């Protein structure tokens, strides 16, 4: 094994990610290579120092409160779901049509109809990401 190959295995070994065959091959190389043994010790020190330096943060309380206030999804009975979709479709048309027509009129190249979705949960939907990426959810949350 070349030192170069041993180094990548060393990184994985310190992360606890080597299988038996790889670990044996690396051990054989380490037996005969002081440079890679030193490298192994260094990576171990480095990993714990870096982790300690980077892992201390705690989320600010106001963000925690905001997240915990996320609206509970409404689980609708199966029979009502087609009705909900129909209502959503009507709402979508009502909401999307005016800006759509306006933007088409302006020749807006950024127009992305697919990015316009609805959130039925109500309440705080946060920044645009939630709107742009969520699909309509009818209650398959695990919570």
């Amino acid at each position, binding site marked *: 094994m070349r030192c170069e190959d041993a*180094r*990548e295995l060393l*990184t*994985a070994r310190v*992360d606890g*990610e080597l299988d038996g065959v790889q670990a044996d091959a690396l051990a054989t190389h380490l037996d005969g290579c002081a440079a890679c043994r030193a490298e192994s010790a*260094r*990576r171990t*020190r*480095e*990993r714990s*120092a*870096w*982790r300690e*330096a*980077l*892992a*201390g*943060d*705690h*989320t*600010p309380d106001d*963000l*925690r409160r*905001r*997240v*915990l206030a*996320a*609206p*509970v*999804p409404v*689980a609708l009975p199966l029979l009502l779901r087609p009705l909900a979709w129909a209502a959503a479709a009507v709402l979508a048309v009502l909401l999307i049509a005016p800006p759509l027509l306006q933007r088409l009129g302006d020749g*807006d*190249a*950024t127009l*992305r109809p697919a990015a316009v979705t609805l959130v039925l*949960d109500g309440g705080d*939907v*946060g*920044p*645009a*990401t*939630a709107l*742009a*990426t*969520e699909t309509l*959810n009818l*209650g*398959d*949350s*695990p*919570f």
Partner: protein
Amino acid sequence: MAQVRDDGFARLVERDLDRVHRFLHGLLRDEDLARDLTHDTFLRLRRSAPAGDDGLPTAAYVFACARHAAVDHWRRLRTRRDAAPHLAADPAPPTPTDAPLHTTELREALDRALGLLDEEHRAVFLLSEVEGLRYAEIAEALGIPPGTVASRKHHAVQDLRRELERMGHAL
């Protein structure tokens, strides 16, 4: 599917809020943005997430959601820049070094060095080194093969080390 259970979501927040926020902060290097996308991530999880044996989604699923929030953000940013060419020349705002809670020299040096990695290497590094995810979990979260996780982790470590040495922080 399972019915609404507030205690499950509270447990998920307890388990993952700090690390999702930390991951997004490291990935995006912007605290306001990290907060907004952390909030978005948990909204998604609140609405829909596959629950494991403990009633909670896996760490891989949670971080996949977080990364999707970041990818969506970058996509919107590109769309806006394409639509408004005069913004294209603006560099990404630098990370405020006064934002994080830890202010050790090593932390600051690592922060700067992380900023020099591309997003793909930074994501793997943060999930592995800081959050302690297994390579298989990272592969699932990022949608890449485990072997790619291993090589990205190794290259990220090499690049960070070189940069830290340059800044006088060799270990």
